[in-house]
């Protein structure tokens, strides 16, 4: 009954050599798509070449870009954090409540927000590493919990009476340009996470954990500790995104960033990170965030309805996993020339 199965094994080989090849080419592919969108966009759509266009794209992409950085590392270790958008929401709520309670020092507000993010991330980390629960389920739970607490803290009110110049300062451009200064924060963090992931033993360890957590543990990598701190980092960065969100819109509401978690995950996956962990890189993810942001705004300028972009996002996401697999399968089939009829069913 099951006699025919061993023949099938070579179809999905462990790909010892191909990993880096496929990975590299994917980063390049996303970057090429980004350049293509920018070039074609600025030639065909009125306003895409305009610096103000990029200012807007960047402002809009900053929260997703921020959260996507630690999320990349989390997904590479084979975990996921779906609670990030709720962390943003809860941070916004607490920020608003603190402001109303009379905390008027901006540095203190930011410090408290980041500390809150660390705690929220640590809660995820404890559930995943100490209790050994699957992060997908845990963070769906904390997604509901943190968003719920955001409503408990602020109800359906909005806190919007911050000093006007806070909002202005948050989105102020770099001197002499139109680029928001906050992009520097994103760049520094990207550099930090990029070096950590791609140039340190810790980063290599993340890939090892994603490929085989048990083997990594036996080879001396502190798997649980690493995962715990990744969740904490994700919480802190999500809280930072919450601070940005609050002041950019000068509005703290419990439903801020609702549903953002799936946008972040989509960007990370489109950036070439494998949902099973162990594969992907930060460059591809940053490029994917930029690609999605530029595409969205360019299409809007071209009067393409926003829903078309939803379709494009989804299709890109599917293509990003189906494409490489189909290519690999086709290659495998060519190599084992003329297979018997056993390939009819997957």
């Amino acid at each position: 009954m099951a006699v025919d199965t061993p023949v099938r094994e070579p179809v999905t080989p462990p790909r010892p050599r191909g990993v880096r090849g496929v990975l590299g080419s994917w980063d390049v592919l996303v970057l090429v798509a980004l350049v293509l969108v920018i070039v074609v966009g600025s030639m065909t759509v009125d306003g895409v070449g305009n610096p103000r266009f990029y200012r807007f794209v960047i402002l809009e992409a900053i929260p997703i870009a921020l959260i996507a950085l630690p999320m990349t590392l989390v997904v590479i270790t084979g975990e996921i954090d779906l609670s990030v958008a709720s962390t943003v929401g809860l941070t916004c709520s607490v920020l608003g409540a603190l402001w109303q309670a009379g905390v008027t020092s901006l540095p203190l507000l930011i410090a408290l927000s980041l500390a809150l993010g660390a705690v929220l991330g640590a809660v995820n980390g404890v559930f995943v590493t100490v209790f050994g629960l699957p992060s997908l389920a845990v963070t769906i739970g904390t997604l509901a919990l943190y968003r719920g607490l955001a409503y408990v803290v602020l109800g359906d009110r909005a806190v919007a009476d911050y000093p006007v110049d806070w909002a202005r300062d948050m989105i102020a451009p770099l001197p002499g340009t139109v680029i928001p200064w906050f992009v520097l924060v994103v760049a520094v963090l990207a550099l930090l996470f990029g070096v950590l992931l791609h140039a340190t033993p810790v980063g290599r360890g993340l890939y090892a954990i994603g490929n085989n957590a048990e083997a990594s543990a036996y080879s001396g990598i502190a798997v649980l500790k690493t995962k715990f701190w990744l969740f904490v980092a994700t919480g802190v960065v999500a809280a930072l995104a919450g601070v940005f969100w609050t002041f950019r819109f000068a509005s703290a509401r419990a439903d801020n960033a609702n549903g953002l978690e799936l946008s972040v995950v989509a960007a990370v996956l489109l950036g070439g990170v494998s949902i099973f962990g162990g594969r992907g890189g930060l460059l591809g993810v940053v490029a994917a965030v930029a690609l999605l942001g530029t595409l969205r705004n360019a299409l809007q300028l071209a009067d393409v309805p926003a829903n078309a972009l939803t379709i494009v996002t989804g299709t890109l996401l599917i293509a990003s996993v189906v494409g490489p697999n189909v290519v690999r399968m086709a290659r495998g089939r060519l190599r084992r020339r003329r297979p018997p009829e056993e390939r009819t069913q997957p």
Partner: protein
Amino acid sequence: MTAPATTPAPAPERAAPASAVHRLFVVRELGIALALVLLVAVTFAVNTRFLSAQNIKDLLLGATILAILAVGQAIVIITRNVDLSVGSILGLAAFATGTLFVDNPGLPIPVALLAGIALGAVCGAINGGLIAAARVPALVVTLGTLYVFRGLDYTWATGQQINAADMPPGFLRLGTASILGVPVLALFAVVVVVGAGLFLRSYRSGRELYAIGSEPDAARLYGIPVGRRVFWAFVTSGALAGLAGVLHAARFGTIDANAGLGQELNVVAAVVVGGVAIFGGSGSVYGAALGAVLLTTIGSALPVLGINPFWQRAAVGVLILAAIGLDRSLAVRLARRLAGGTDRGR
């Protein structure tokens, strides 16, 4: 935190594994049923009107759509996959139903039902086809189709809304009518739950879904057509989401392109609370349906208990975390028992 009742001395018969597995299921579904009864009882004690005929009807109506979605999701999760596109399929089917009635005012209701189910099944077949044929992770594909289906829905609706006046009164009566005090919609859910429960319990292909979820590779070696089973699991989930869409249209009467928006994680939450392991291989649709009822009942119970309704989502989050924690401890106990009841550890 239901303390697992102290097990009444090792069962006399030697069929340890079977009885242990059986006990796990019994304990698990009993636990959630108890939690539900407790919640209802306490709320009833506070305000007897909580169990008035009208309120019971509202509770059942509220739980119907989530329960139907949860059954489909449970079937998919049992095979160690996940379907994030159900909310979008629901929206698409609901809008399709409305459009059908606008275009053909005299359309018989069963035809509309079948059309909705068929549309959902087609969407599910797209998911399942991609996942089974291209061998790509379900989370990524269904996140992609979440966007694609919703985008199609938006494109189709182009901002218009279908009102109750556009739909035949007979169809809308379906949403409010009841037989012997039980809403007709809830009867749909009961039929779906019992049907799926019987299939998963007593049919060979139903059992094979559990085998696939426990260990896909082993299932494949054993000769189970994994791809085909997973494909049909997604078709089922899609068809049920389609059915839920039609019922949504009947219940609310007013449909825009946002029907079911953001439902996907609620559904997964209901399934997880109902004791279906997020990584497949165990759980039942009865549990999943109970989970859905529990989640919706909390929503209506909190205001009666005098608790700020803003606590609802937080309570749901705590419930999810408690449920997976409970499952984990049960699984550990079970593993210990299967290992011979000795201190072989894990």
